[in-house]
């Protein structure tokens, strides 16, 4: 299962970096005469209402979709990581204050924080990316804090203190590398979730808008024809599910490996 998801991920990454290699066509080229073609040899996954090839669009959509997911994860982990590190490293009162603040953010569960941000900043690809990052930040903050505390109280950090190492050296040489490993796993686990959320926002008309080749926006555009032309919603959604599931499986695999080593 790990090999399959790694292979799938490699394919998606290739599609994201070099879409022309896998699908030489233009994802925005319209051909009205070929509208609503079902999947066939000429059009692997069929065509949409303007005759655009769905396979080409999904391959070219990998870049924006994965990029938004990755960026949102970086934003979420950056904000959450800073909050978590401050809480985990600071003195007791700083920890208590930061933890309380994160607890308050948790009271806006799921998409709520993202929607609140969109009300302020207005819809669009950039704001929806930041919104997803914000929405995931409290979760990361909690995880990073727990991890920093565990490392800080570990035997090797204590022995570094006993050996008289300064706090900066302890942070850079001992705490940061050990927290970093876990963070990498968190990123892999989080990207799948971010891709799903960002595409949900596009689907709701608050992120990337059609005719751009982004999976959520494609699904949203295909929604009108769900009864008659099933491939328009089925395949973009499948791309989202497969990318989210494969990153999650890979993340879990990494998690188990770091745990057992």
């Amino acid at each position, binding site marked *: 299962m790990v090999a399959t998801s790694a292979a799938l991920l490699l394919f998606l990454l290739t599609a994201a970096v070099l879409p022309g290699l896998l699908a030489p066509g233009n994802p925005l080229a319209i051909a009205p005469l070929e509208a609503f073609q079902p999947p066939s040899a000429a059009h692997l996954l069929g065509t949409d209402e303007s005759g655009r090839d769905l396979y080409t669009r999904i391959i070219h959509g990998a870049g924006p979709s994965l990029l938004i997911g990755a960026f949102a994860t970086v934003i979420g982990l950056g904000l959450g990581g800073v909050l978590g590190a401050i809480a985990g490293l600071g003195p007791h009162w700083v920890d208590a204050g930061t933890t309380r603040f994160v607890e308050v953010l948790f009271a806006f569960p799921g998409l709520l924080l993202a929607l609140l941000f969109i009300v302020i900043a207005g819809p669009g690809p950039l704001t929806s990316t930041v919104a997803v990052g914000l929405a995931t930040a409290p979760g990361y903050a909690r995880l990073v804090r727990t991890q920093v505390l565990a490392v800080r109280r570990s035997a090797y950090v204590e022995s570094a203190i006993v050996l008289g190492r300064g706090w900066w050296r302890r942070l850079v040489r001992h705490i940061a590398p050990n927290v970093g490993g876990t963070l990498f796993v968190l990123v892999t686990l989080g990207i799948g979730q971010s891709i*799903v959320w960002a595409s949900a926002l596009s689907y709701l008309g608050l992120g990337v808008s059609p005719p751009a080749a982004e999976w959520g926006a494609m699904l949203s555009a295909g929604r009108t024809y769900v009864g008659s032309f099933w491939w328009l919603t089925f395949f973009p959604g499948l791309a989202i599910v497969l990318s989210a599931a494969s990153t999650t499986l890979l993340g879990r695999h990494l998690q188990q490996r770091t745990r057992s080593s």
Partner: protein
Amino acid sequence: MSALRWTVGRLGGLVFVLWAAATLTFFTLRLIPGDPAEAVLGGPGSQASEEALAAARAEYGLDQPLVVQYLTQLARYARFDFGTSYALRQPVAQVIGDQLAGTIALAVMALALAWVLALLVAVWSTRSGRLAAGIGTGLEVVAVAIPHFWLATSLVLLFSSTLGWLPALSGSSAAGLVLPVITLAIPLAGFIGQVMRESLLDALSSPFVLAARTRGETATGVIWRHALRHAALPAIGLSGWAFGSLVSGAVVVETIFARPGIGRSLLSAVQARDVPLVTGIVLIVALAYSVVTTATDFFERIADPRLRLAAVA
């Protein structure tokens, strides 16, 4: 720590979170560019007259200093008075009151179905060998990764367009509830199932299960009467997460199935930048979330004696 002190502390925390959430919302929404008085009258495109703007400022207290506005608002929030929706021209409390029951019904049914599914998959995949365990993991991962909007459209495709068994739009009929409930339940079931299976395996290898077996309990009896109780606790501890999933899911599911409810109102309020309605719904959800997590804490303490003993030690 005595039970009373713990309770008071926990309720104090609840009040603090609500106050902070309201404060955060109030000041965050102040960041919206543009004149709030103009927004009341329908946004910058409305070309409202100076007199109308002045009247709106007076009506909503926008001419007062920010501190006064903040305190007035806070007092109003505490009375569930969120003002009048810009877009619907109705009191926000009334809009929420009309929509709340539908969303709660949807969420409760989805939660129940998710637990049943998670329970069945967890028990089956721990009992039936390696292949079943692999299938169980696969099902859970896919269930967690499926976005609500795709699941909803796929279910409509299969059960409404192709088979014609169930309506694609929810309406108010009982049949219209089936697809929305399934859509909300499946990703949630995947998540609860993951946690439950892990703790079920944990419980099955613990001494109390062996003790029950030596007393003559059957393999099935051990699972249902002993191990599951133990395994359900961590999953209950995730109620806050489940709540978040249900709320986010409700936004999408109610929109797709054209079902009246809080989620759909929230989305249209966000699209229209209807600040009072967004504020009202966000704060009601924050209140519900805080109550759910506090109740979970109470329940866990009652159900798990170790938590109480740990506090004493």
